């Protein structure tokens, strides 16, 4: 426990070297967003000629350590115990902080998943340092070895560059889905230091008593998304969007209020508090285009907006703007696709 103590500047910051990455694991594998951290961590480490050290906490860590090695870690350290099998904040933060004390990393990156954020701030307080949340751009000043942590603020309108000059490690969490998963290597040159530990019982104060897995639907992997918002006016609107999505071989997405009123399940939600998606085609029907929605879909290749309000904000984020009632436009869309498909079929038959 840290106690009521300030974040005093770190005494010999020059002694801190290397880039640390926390590897979050689920069901025996490293989560994708942590692999992304290996990618950006390695990039930063290479720029300053340092090592990438990855940190595992859990049980049966060997396969995950090997996985980390294949993705490019120079060293994997880990604390292993049956008591660490489930994610529990206090013991996880304890071992992370212990490895920080031992290894003295200059930079420490964690994927900004819910568990990642749960942990990051506690590790930072334990180490009496700062942490920048949810970065989308991460770089390093190669001379001073200062982390340049950039995070979007004010409804994603502005990018703030945040520095932590006098404290070590310089910590950041990074937004999932922004950085690239690195290519796999043979992973032979990775140093391993996985230790069996005895967890102090006073650190075990919560118990995971159940888990309900998501029922397989993952909107982030869809190539085409047809999203609906409050403009649908009723739950049945999603049935219409479902037909369009199925004609296109895509899936249905939603704005947050459409989820909140219960028209569709939360795993369909796109945006700041939903999922960030980047499909080939994103169709937004009856969505106004508020910043919190836009941030989740603006990376899409092509965006079509359908909105009856000529001044809807969504227009300026769209490649094509259908300024009309979606109940007229969507059926027309479905019809148009069917017609083309019919024609193709006829041509194939006659050919």
């Amino acid at each position, binding site marked *: *426990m*840290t*106690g*009521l103590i300030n*974040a005093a500047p770190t005494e010999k910051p020059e002694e801190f070297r290397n880039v640390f990455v926390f590897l979050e694991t*689920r069901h025996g594998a490293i989560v994708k967003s942590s692999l992304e951290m290996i990618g950006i961590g390695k990039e930063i480490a290479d720029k300053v000629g340092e090592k990438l050290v990855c940190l595992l906490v859990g049980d049966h860590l060997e396969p995950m350590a090997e996985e980390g090695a294949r993705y490019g870690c120079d060293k994997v350290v880990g604390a292993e115990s049956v008591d660490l099998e489930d*994610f529990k*904040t206090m013991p996880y933060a304890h071992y992370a902080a212990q490895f920080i004390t031992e290894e003295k990393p200059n930079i420490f990156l964690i994927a900004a*998943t819910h*568990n990642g954020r749960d*942990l990051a*701030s*506690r590790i*930072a*307080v334990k180490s009496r*340092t*700062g942490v920048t*949340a949810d970065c989308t751009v991460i770089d390093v000043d190669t001379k001073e070895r200062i982390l340049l942590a950039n995070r*979007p*603020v*004010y409804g*994603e*309108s502005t*990018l*703030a*560059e*945040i*520095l*932590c000059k*006098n404290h070590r490690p310089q910590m950041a969490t990074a937004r*999932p889905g922004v950085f690239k998963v690195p290519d796999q290597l043979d992973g032979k040159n990775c140093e391993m230091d996985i230790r069996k530990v005895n967890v102090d019982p006073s650190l075990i*104060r*919560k118990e*995971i*008593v*159940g*888990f*309900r*897995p998501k029922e397989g639907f993952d909107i982030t992997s869809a190539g085409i998304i047809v999203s609906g918002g409050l403009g649908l006016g009723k739950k049945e609107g999603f049935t219409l969007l479902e037909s369009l999505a199925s004609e296109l*071989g895509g899936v249905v997405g939603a704005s*947050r209020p459409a989820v909140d009123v219960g028209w569709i399940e939360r795993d369909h939600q796109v945006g700041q*508090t939903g999922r960030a998606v980047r499909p080939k085609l994103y169709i937004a029907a009856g969505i106004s285009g508020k910043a919190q929605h836009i941030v989740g879909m603006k990376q899409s290749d*092509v*965006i*079509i907006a359908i909105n009856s309000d000529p001044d809807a904000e969504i227009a*300026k984020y769209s*490649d*094509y*703007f259908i*300024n*009309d009632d979606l109940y007229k*436009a969507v059926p027309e*869309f479905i019809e*148009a*696709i069917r*017609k083309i*498909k*019919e024609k*193709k*079929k006829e041509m194939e038959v006659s050919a």
Partner: protein
Amino acid sequence: MTLEIVVMIKQVPDSQEVEIDPVTKTLNRMKARNVLNVADDNALEAALSIKDRVDAHITIVSMGPPMADEAILECMGKGADRGVLLTDRAFAGADTYPTGLALAAAITKLGKYDLIFAGEETSDSSTGHVGPGVAEFLGIEQITYTHSVEFEDGYVIGERELEDGVEIVRAKPPVVVTVLLGANIPRRQTLRKKIDAIRKGVETWTIQNLGIPAEWVGFKGSPTIVRSMKTIKEKERAAKMVRVEEIGGLVRELAGNGIINVEAEEK
């Protein structure tokens, strides 16, 4: 035995009305209306719904400018029993470390605490780091990102939303619980409670009340600094107007560009 609950709330500029001062690169709070951070309202509701069932006493703690007492009074108007506002020049410009430190110092000073509620994040700094930071300063466990919280047989049971599912966690108090935005439907104030709240008033504490040095909090106590702010340039999009009668043409264009696939699928 009365369950002692603390709810940490923050008054934030209404996210729909925020402007950024180009010189100081900070939020121009003068222009926007100030409101109770939405997730904190959900956190309060979670606390109140426990108080509906068991003997509990709720204290609101907030760090902010003097006018933040409005947000605290609003919470009391909904059923919180006591309000404490940490307000002092020394607190200004804090990042999450000293914010957590000041709040943890205040909670320690309150004496006994069983449950400490916070929102998942604030709309103005959106880090979600303050709740867990407080838990660390106090040396207690936390259950974050909950959409439901129950208190039964001396245990807190929280359902946490994770990327791959919902995790059900059980812990004994004291524990910090952070609540998702939209986790519940916050109740309204009642006239009666509102009047009581105004009569009771909000206690204001300065740095002196916390028993920690002034250099530990606020800007001076913050390990991070904002070096620069840049407007994010959006990809320019054409917003080409398409009338409903032209959708057929649009679909052919998309098919031609390989954006959509119109091969009749095998049935």
